[in-house]
């Protein structure tokens, strides 16, 4: 699956990257990302997730070809 991160998350991860491992749902993805960068745990706890440009909950079941956006709290305007 393809991951894209935004804003402050770019200080922790590449803007875009691919995950080969099979991950069941968003909760598992979140744990995976924390394992990669434990210092991002705080901000990840405040993030929403979108799959193929739709917001999803933590129980969304991930598919191999999903395109996932990791969305920190907004600060527009």
């Amino acid at each position, binding site marked *: 699956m393809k991951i*894209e991160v*935004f*804003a*402050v998350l770019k*200080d922790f991860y590449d803007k875009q990257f691919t995950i080969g491992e099979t991950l069941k749902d968003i909760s598992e993805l979140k744990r995976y990302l924390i394992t990669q960068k434990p210092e991002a745990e705080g901000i990840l*706890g*405040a*993030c*929403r997730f*979108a799959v193929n*440009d*739709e*917001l999803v909950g933590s129980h969304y079941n991930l598919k191999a070809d999903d395109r996932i*956006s990791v*969305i*920190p*709290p*907004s*600060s*527009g*305007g």
Partner: protein
Amino acid sequence: MTGSPLSRQAAGAENILSDQPLQLAELLAASHHPGAGAVVLFSGDVRINNLGKEVAYLEFEAQEKLAVKMIREILDQATQKWQLNIAVAQHRLGKVGISECAVVVITASPHRKEAYDANRYIMDRLKHEVPIWKCEYFTDGTHKWGGNCNCAEITGNPAEHIYEFNSTAHEK
């Protein structure tokens, strides 16, 4: 913009996100409507100072497809709720200089209360919910990703916000 039979979108309002300076005068000129007695325009400008430091410029980034979709939904919901004649929002992306407009919201309705309330509601939801981020670049060379919405620290839920706008209307 399909809420009321009287409602329409202002000309030039197609580009919800834009990396070019927002054309406030044109948007405003296109936002008068024979059925509307009240037009409210909000312009969110870049301030020269923040957090006690001098700002050089801001840079905005978005999850563009999701942001556009969410802004359209917010405009539609506000149009329905307040029976607006016009509801428009545009947000800059990329680098935005001091005193430039980063976001504009225009609402028009028969009476003024609705235009003010709807405008504030749209801005409020836009700031909290829509995936647009700003990075502040200061004149001392430092920069900081904006974190205007820290509601989750209080509510414990990234999807639950504390709105300035005083209403129960935020429940979807």
